[in-house]
Structure formats: C-alpha cells, structure tokens
C-alpha cells in the first residue's frame, strides 16, 4: 500500500489524542473522545470536523456553466451566485460516478466539492468531457472544515465577517474566518444546522484552533469520521461507496429531486428517463430492526424468506437508540408492511421499512435556500 495522505491538521489530531484510521487513502481521525460522545455533541451543541481530504475542482471561464450542466443531474440554471446545489455526476448508463456539491461563485465560475475517494476518478471523468473548458484541481491547496450543530452559528458569528443571520441553507459567502480568507457555506452532512468552511490548506490549522477555542464554552468538540457516519446515517444522507456507486442510479437511491430530467441534456439523462418511465428495479429504503442485532453493510435482506435486497449502511442510531439501516430492496418490496428480515450471522432478524430521515432536527429560524 502506498503511503497514506495526511491533512494539514494531522498534528492537531495527534495532539488531541485522536484515533487515526485509513479512509479512502487518507489517515483520518475516526474519533477523539468517543463516537457516541461526539455524536451527542453535534446533536446538542456543536462539532468540528476536519474534512480536508475531500476534493475541490474549479471550473471557470467560457463554457463553465455549460460543462457543469452537461456533467451533473441537477439544473445548473437554477443556481444564482452564492448558491450551492447537491447534485450527481452520472455515467451514460445512469450509474453514479459521484455525489457532489456544486457552488456557483459567478456566472462563469463554479466550485465542485467531491468525495475524497473519488478525486482521481472524478478528475478523469471531468477531463474527458471538458472539451477545452478550464478545470483546475484545487484539492491539495484547499482545506475544509465542517462546523455542525445547533450552536454552530453562535460559535462562528464572532469569528467571521459573513452575516450568518442572512445566510440561508445551501447558500455561501466569501469572507474571512479567524482573519483568513474563507468560503462560508451553510451546508453539511449531519442533519443539523451548520457550516462548511473552505480555506487555503496552510491556513486551516488557524481556523481549527480558533473554532476549538471559541466553541469549547458552548460544548463544541472535535468530531471524527465515526460520528460523521452515524450522524449522516440518522439523517439518511447517502454515502458514496456504501449507498451509491457506479452500479446504482440516483433514481433508485431516492434522489429524483436532484435529477432534472426535463431540463437541458446531461450525461446519463436518456438512461435515467428510461428508468423513470419503466420504473426502478430496486429502491433504497430505510429499515429499522425489530429484533436484537445491528444491520451492517452487505447483510442480506429477505422478503418472505427469499433474498430481495442488501443493506448498504447500518448502525445503532445513537439518538434513537435503535438499529437503523439503509438498503436496496426489489421495488415490489419497497413499501411492504411486513415479511422483511435482515440476515445477521445466519439468523433472521425482523425488520420494518420506515420513513427517512430517521432523525429530523426541530427546525428553528433558518429558511431554506436550496433547489
């Protein structure tokens, strides 16, 4: 195995006593104080995540908007400056190359934030379609922090010149955090209010230190990838590599609202239109176990005793204190009221399909600005 990559915060994680693990070619903190503690901190106060391993591509100049439209399933025309869109890169056959966020910084300048494990694949995919449009890989030069939780805004406000009171969900502003240039984006991957902060890789430790110090009195904790996974799963946010991959489609994953089949053409549109018309063969559903055990990635799902699907993500929800999972089932079973089991170490454990997200925060004042 080649040497693992490290983020600019590696030393800070070590100093904080983090457990470090391999993730997508990176040596990343899986936890600091413990996954459950960190999970709770994000749900009740705030958590700070180093997600600098994620990739950033900049697409700019003539043809930038057209390339983004051609490559992504959502409608780029819906974006205004300062707005973010969750969207997907799809193959011709509708399979998901990656799920990403797309930032419109100007009419001819876009930032794509991509999954760490897909940086090389996405780069090659975008290059193959660029047709002369300028695309720049800013991944190594860019650091990314996520500040998430009900107290995120009050912690960040004194450290930034961005007006958080008027910054809506799925909007971003370019300003300063802890005196350093940063993009402040009201987005996240936890199901809570919060921010993602992009800054130069070399400056990220300054932001980290300032946020840790300013947030500590409010209960902010550093949070690792372990709680990032349980938080996103409670919010039923898909994880690429688990719930999405080259062989799954956004329609079967329940992401139809991010796929604009009647807007301008994009790679994969014909296949996805055909899937819409014929119906998806399988669907991603939320499951809750009724018996003892935890459903995990790769466990079989059975309907009336026959294999009808597979668990793609599962854990014991720290908030609900129940075993929850996402998994694909044959469409005929996607709304079944009974008869489902998950096979755990050879044992059939009763499961029920439940609405997602498993966890939804009590909404306060943040108006929606997404599309």
């Amino acid at each position, binding site marked *: 195995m080649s040497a693992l990559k490290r983020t600019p915060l590696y030393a800070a994680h070590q100093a904080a006593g983090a*457990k470090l693990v391999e993730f997508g070619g990176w040596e990343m903190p*899986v*936890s600091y104080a*413990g*996954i*459950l503690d960190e999970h709770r901190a994000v749900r009740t106060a705030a958590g700070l995540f180093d997600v600098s391993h994620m990739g950033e591509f900049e697409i700019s100049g003539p043809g930038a908007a057209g390339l983004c439209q051609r490559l992504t399933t959502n409608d780029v025309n819906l974006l205004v400056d300062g707005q973010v869109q969750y969207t997907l890169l799809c193959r011709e056959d509708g399979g998901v190359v990656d799920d990403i966020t797309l930032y419109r910084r100007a009419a001819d300048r876009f930032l794509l934030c991509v999954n760490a494990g897909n940086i090389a694949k996405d780069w090659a995919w975008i290059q193959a379609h660029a047709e002369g449009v300028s695309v720049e890989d800013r991944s190594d030069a860019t650091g990314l922090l996520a500040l998430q939780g009900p107290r995120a805004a009050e912690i960040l406000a004194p450290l930034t010149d961005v007006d958080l009171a008027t910054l809506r969900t799925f909007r971003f502003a370019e300003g300063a955090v802890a005196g350093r240039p940063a993009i402040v984006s009201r987005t996240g991957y936890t199901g809570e209010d919060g921010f993602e902060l992009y800054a130069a890789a070399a400056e990220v430790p300054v932001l980290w230190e300032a946020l840790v110090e300013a947030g500590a009195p409010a209960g902010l904790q550093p949070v690792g990838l*372990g709680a990032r*996974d*349980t938080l996103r799963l409670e919010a039923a946010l898909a994880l690429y590599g688990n719930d999405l991959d080259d062989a799954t489609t956004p329609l079967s994953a329940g992401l139809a609202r991010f796929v604009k089949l009647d807007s301008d053409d994009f790679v994969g549109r014909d296949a996805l239109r055909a899937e819409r018309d014929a119906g998806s063969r399988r669907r991603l559903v939320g499951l809750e176990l009724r018996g*003892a*055990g*935890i459903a*995990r990635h790769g466990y079989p799902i059975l309907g009336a005793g026959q294999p009808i699907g597979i668990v793609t993500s599962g*854990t*014991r929800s*720290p908030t609900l204190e129940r075993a929850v999972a996402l998994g694909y089932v044959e469409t005929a079973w996607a709304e079944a009221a009974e008869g489902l089991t998950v096979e755990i*170490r050879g044992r059939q454990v009763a499961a029920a399909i439940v609405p997602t997200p498993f966890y939804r925060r009590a909404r306060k004042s943040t108006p929606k600005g997404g599309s």
Partner: protein
Amino acid sequence: MQAPDTLRYSEEHEWVRVTDGIAVIGITDHAQDELGDIVFVELPAKDAAVTKGKPFGVVESVKAVSDVYSPVTGTVVEANDALADTPEVVNTDPYGDGWMAKVSLADPAEVEQLMTAAQYEEFVAKEKS
C-alpha cells in the same frame, strides 16, 4: 492499559479468571479501548460447548463487528445476559460487571497456557509497534 495480575490472557484479547474449575471470561481493557463504544453484545447460550480459539460471541462497537474467541474449552454454565441491555458496561468495567460468560473447564491445564498479565502487556506493546 490495565491488566490485573490475577487474570490470564489470550492473544485475541480475552481474559480468564478461574475459581473452582469455572472460568469467567471477558475482553480486556485494551480490547474495549480499541473497539470504542460498545453497543451490542451477542453471547453463547447456557450449556453451549465452546472451544479454545473459536469464536463464542460477538461484540459490536458503533463502527465494527468483532468476534469474541473462547480462550478455553468447556461448557457455558452462565452468560452475562445483563449485557443485552447495558453493553456499555464492557467499556466501563471490562474486568468486573462486563464479564461475558462462565465456562466449566474441560481441561483446567489449558489456562496455564494463557499469558500472565506481564506477558500480555508485553504482547500488546509489541502489537502496537
């Protein structure tokens, strides 16, 4: 890491305490620390036969599923069923209330082949390096 002198240890990070031919078995402080927050424990049934070096139960942390290997051969006389509702006790009290099973030993001499506390500490230090 804590490893009481009165116990014996396996390379799979289980501990054994023997009283009157009955072995009490659990996982070590080091093991629980490595696993992190334990959220589910699956134990053998009473009267189940267990074999040295073979899985006899499962502990699940938030992130991972791990087998628990029996450090001895024998018959389960009691399992710690309280862990079904309070698996976190394995984290907070691995050598006490976090015990997993009591096994009637088929061959009491087997215990002598397990590591002493000093040997186990050395083993863990080597594993880490």
